[in-house]
Structures are given as C-alpha cells and as structure tokens.
C-alpha cells in the first residue's frame, strides 16, 4: 500500500544533491590545497638547491676569480650529480668561459631571480625545463646556475593524477554518505508520519517512538506526542459527553415510552389511545435519530475498525438485495443487482446499513423511479458501491444540501426521517477511508460510495 513517491524533485532528492555537492566541494578543496602545497614545496626545494649552488660558486670566485669558478664548473659537471645541472660562466664581454650551454639564454637578464626556462644543454638532444638563477660576479662576469626540473614536473603530473583518482574515489563515497544521511533523516521522519497517519485514521493511541537522545527529531517527536495526548484527552472527553448525552436522553425517552405503554393498557378511550399512538411514534423517531447520531459519531471516531472482515462483494449485495427486494417491489420499484465482483475488507453491518439507507432513500424520495440498480466493483484496492435510481434526481446545486447533517431537501413533504441517512453513509465511507459522491444517473440519482483510500 506504500504510494510511489516521486523521487526526482522531491525534498529527499534535493537533500541528497545538496549533501553530495557539499561533500564534493570539501573533498575537492582539500585535494586542491594538497596539490598546490606539494607543488610549492617541491619548487622551494629546487630554488634552495640552485641558490646554494650559486652562493657556493660565488665563494669560489672570491677565492680564485673566474678561473677557480670555471674549474669548479667543469668538476661539477663531470660528477654524477652534474647530470641535472645547468652551469654557465661568462666574462665581462659576455663570452662563455665555462659551462654546458652555448650562450646566455636570450631574454634572461644577467641578474635574475628564480626563472623556469626551456633550454638545450650541451650534449643533450632535447630542450628541457630548467630552473635557473642569474648572478652577477665581481669584475663583470656572470654566473648562471640551474637545475633540470623536467622530472619534477613529471612528479607533479603524477601527483595530479593521484589527486584526480582520489577525487573519483571520493565521488561514490560522497554519494553514499549523502544517501545514508538522507535515509537516516527519512527514517526518523517516517516514524512521525506513520504515527500522524495512524492518528488521522482514528487510532488516537498511537505515539511517535522516541529514542531519548534529545536531538531535534526526538524533541519534535516529544512535542508531537504531547499534542496527541492532548487531542486524545479532548476526543475521549467528547466521546464520554456524547455517549453520556445519548444515555441521559435515552433514559427519559425510555421512561416516556414505558409510561405510555402502561397507560395504553389502562385506558380504553379511543381518543386518548390515538394520541398515545402518535406520541409513541414520535418517541420512536426521536430514539432512531439518537441511535443514528450515535452511530455516526462512533464511525467518525474510527470505532469499529477492529470489526472489519473480508467480504465477498457479490454475496454481500445478494444478501442486501434479498433483504430489501420485497419492500421495493411493494412500492413498485424493481431492485436489480448489476455485475459485481471482488473481495473487500469492510464493516459488514455498517456497510449493509449504509446501502440499506440508500435503497430506503430511493424508495422514499426518488420520484417516478421504477428501477434501482445496485452494484459493487473492486478497482485498484477500492470498492465502489453504487446505488442508482431512474427517478427525477437531485439538481446539482442541491446535492451539497442533501449531504449535510440533518439536511432535508423538502422538509414539508416527508414528515418522517431525520435527515441523518446520508450523513451515516458518509460516516461509513470515512470509516473505510473512502468518500461519498452524488452524481447524475441521467435520469435519476447515482450515489457512489467508495471504500478505501485511492491508490498511489
């Protein structure tokens, strides 16, 4: 019976999306920071190394001038470490004295802080990315120190790929967290919703289960339960008043009829007897109204749901047909069962009484009718019971009045009847989560009693 919830566009979907996006933003931010930190760190290392190299060679220059530096350059390039180095010493005229590059790179100032340039070293067959520092030496000479950062860049690329993989790993995790969080919230809310709908169906004793955690949901549940306790108290007070009133009214009516019955045996005056018969009839009407009003208030309070039984619709209608057919025939109306089928869970007595009321109404009020059709079909877990006559019907604008409690369309013409008949039928419909509708039978009145809540 769980209705299909439209997922996309629902608050749940939006919540999942929001949590997911926030998660991804947080993860992405952390990864981006890590990436830039790694990058900075490795560049810093390179810079420090190249700077140190320049300072070292300057110290050699102080000791032995260009010659000492040139010797150092040759030495250093010859070592294993020299593989990654770029070194160049030029004299005051700008000519190369020593080093593994042909000339000072074009566009690079002589005194330059950390630069990354693309250059081809002597003995190398390709252009490489090289981080360099240009240094002035006393006497107009210039020193270029540098280190290949090609492989460093590769290392950065690897780390970027790792970060990307990490990002895509985080993707399903974030989705999972989003879905799980939303589910957690939904489960808590569903508990409250279940209670609310149970109470809506008349089970006032239902309460929201609490976990005692004191969180927002728990407090919502507590507030909800407090409200329900209050409602339950009010309703039970109302019920006590209603049944008390019914009891208090019945007692005097009972005494009235008892006195009348006794009096009837003690007099033979025909005038008095006739008057007492009329009073008896009125007392009977009053009593019937009271009984019906009580039935209505009980049905509306949801009392009787525990007596629902599975009923074969065709059999139930056959029973009712059988009960009412002689009476309708006596007033010249043909009672007909139209194709009916299915099984439904309902309150047998009250539904029979409701259908009886409808047939009774047709007999009393459907002017010119000579046929009343009775049918019941189970469609989509709803039972649609129809009582349709071919009389003059009720005008569209009068239908609401016909449904109102104590409402009678023409009080002058029909002295009996309390106007509670249709109200009882409506209360029976509500007891079964259903509805009562009046429609045009063209000609005549078509009363549709639908039991069960609409699916979906």
């Amino acid at each position, binding site marked *: 019976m769980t209705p299909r919830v439209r997922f996309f566009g629902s608050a749940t979907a939006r919540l999942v999306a929001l949590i997911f996006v926030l998660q991804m933003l947080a993860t992405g931010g952390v990864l981006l920071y890590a990436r830039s930190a790694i990058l900075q760190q490795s560049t810093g290392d390179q810079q420090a190394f190249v700077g140190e190299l320049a300072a070292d060679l300057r110290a050699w220059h102080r000791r032995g001038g260009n010659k000492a530096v040139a010797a150092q350059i040759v030495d250093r390039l010859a070592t294993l470490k020299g593989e990654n180095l770029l070194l160049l010493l030029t004299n005051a005229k700008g000519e190369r004295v020593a080093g593994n590059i042909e000339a000072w790179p074009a566009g690079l100032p002589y005194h330059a802080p950390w630069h990354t340039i693309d250059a081809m070293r002597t003995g190398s067959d390709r252009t490489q990315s090289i981080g360099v520092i240009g240094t002035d030496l006393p006497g107009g000479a210039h020193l270029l120190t540098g280190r290949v950062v090609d492989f460093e860049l590769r290392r950065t690329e690897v780390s970027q790929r790792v970060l990307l993989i990490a990002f895509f790993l985080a993707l399903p995790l974030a989705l999972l967290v989003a879905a799980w969080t939303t589910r957690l919230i939904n489960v808590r809310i569903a508990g409250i919703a279940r209670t609310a709908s149970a109470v809506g169906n008349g089970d006032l004793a239902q309460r929201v289960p609490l976990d005692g955690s004191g969180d927002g949901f728990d407090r919502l549940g507590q507030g909800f339960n407090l409200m329900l306790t209050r409602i339950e108290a009010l309703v039970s007070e109302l019920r006590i008043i209603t049944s008390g009133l019914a009891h208090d009214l019945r007692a005097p009516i009972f005494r009235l009829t008892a006195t009348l019955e006794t009096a009837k045996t003690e007099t033979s005056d025909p005038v008095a007897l006739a008057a007492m018969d009329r009073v008896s009839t009125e007392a009977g009407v009053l009593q019937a109204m009271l009984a019906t009003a*009580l039935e209505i208030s009980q049905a509306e309070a949801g009392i009787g749901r525990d007596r629902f039984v599975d009923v074969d619709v065709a059999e139930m209608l056959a029973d009712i047909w059988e009960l009412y057919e002689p009476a309708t025939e006596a007033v010249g109306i043909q009672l007909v069962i139209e194709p009916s089928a299915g099984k439904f869970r309902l309150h047998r007595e009250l539904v029979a009484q409701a259908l009886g009321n409808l047939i009774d109404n047709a007999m009393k009020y459907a002017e010119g009718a000579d046929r009343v059709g009775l049918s019941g079909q189970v469609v989509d877990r709803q039972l649609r019971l129809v009582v349709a006559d071919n009389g003059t019907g009720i005008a569209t604008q009068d239908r609401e009045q016909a449904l109102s409690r104590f409402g009678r369309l023409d009080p002058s013409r029909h002295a009996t009847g309390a106007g509670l008949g249709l109200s009882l039928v409506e209360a029976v419909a509500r007891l079964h989560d259903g509805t009562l509708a009046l429609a045009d039978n063209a000609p005549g009145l078509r009363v549709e009693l639908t039991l069960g809540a609409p699916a979906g």
Partner: protein
Amino acid sequence: MSRKILVVEDDATAAAFIGKGLGEAGFNVDRADNGRDGFFLASDGSYDAIILDRMLPGMNGMAVLSALRAANIETPIIILSAMGTADDRVAGLIAGSDDYLVKPFAFAELLARLQRLMKRGSAGTPIETRLQCADLELDLLGRRVKRGDMTVALQPREFRLLEYLMRHQDQVVTRTMLLEGVWDYHFDPGTNIIDVHVSRLRRKVDAGFATPLIHTIRGAGYRLGVGD
C-alpha cells in the same frame, strides 16, 4: 412454581415498568438498584434469568456479567443498554451475555427475548431434522416444506424465516429478533422491511387454508402456532 427473574436496574421508572410487566406475565421479580447488590443476589445461581442494566452505580453491568461468568454462574442474562450500536451489542455478547437489548425498548420485545432464553435454557437444543406445527411440515435435510398434502415452494431465505418461526413456535418473535436470527443484521433497516417478508411468507404458507398459522401480535411482532 413460578419462575424467578432478577432485575438489576438503577432507574426506578424503568425498574417499575419491567417489574410490573413481568409480574403480569406471571414471573416472580427481585430487584437490585446497583451492581454490587445485583452480583450478590445473582451469585447463588437461583434465578431463571437476569435482566442487567449496563450502566450501574457501584459496579457496572459488564463487570457484573464477567464476574458471574467467572464464578461459573450460567444463568441466562439479558443486557439492557443505552449504547445501541452494533459494536456495543457485539461487545456485550462476547462478554458472555445471552442477549442484548437497547433502551428504549417495548416491553413485548423484552418478554419475547426472555421467553426465548428460558426455553433454550430448559429444553436444550436437540438436533432436529424435521419441524412440525399442525399440518405444516418443514424438512430440514431435504429443504422441503409441506402444508397438508401440498408442497410449498419457498425461496432459501423464506425457508430460513419459516424455520426460525417454527423453532420458536407459540412464542412471540419480534422484528429485531427475526432480523438478527435470519439475516444476522443488528441495525434498524427502516420501512417495515421485515413485515413485507413475513407477509410474503404468509401468502405462501397460509393462503387458502382454513386455519392461519402465522399471527401478527400487535405492538410486538409475530407468532407461529395454532389459534390466537
């Protein structure tokens, strides 16, 4: 020896009305005006039937009923109540009462039900295959009805209606008793529904015979039997 009935009812007018009627019908009546006294009087099991109001001071009718049944007092009990919905009736019957009557009621209704209860209590219910009243014969196995030498063709529900009347022959049965016994409904169907059924049955069973068997009892219901 006349039969003893206990009436447990706090409303003096109602109690007097019931007591007077029962007295005229030849019963010996004791009365209690609260549940505790009622239970005390009933607990020796000497009554033939108990008429018990549902709402009583001291101890309510349903509590008295449960206490008596718990003490194995099987005296037939009719509950009287202002609470008259079908659910209230069922609750009363489940709690162990033998019948349930809603106030206000006609005295004839109470009397008819009381007599049915006491008859059931004394005679028991032997398994019968054939019911007979004068020249009317009802064959329960063959589902056939004969009046004298004539076969009477009845619809299934008419058969059950006649069966109910014959099982309670010479007793008054009311319209609500018929509705409960034959149709298993406890609501007021309105508009002389039962009367129409009985008059149909009467046309088939009595028409053309010198002695009518189905009699209308004014203000009460019907009785099947010979003579008035």
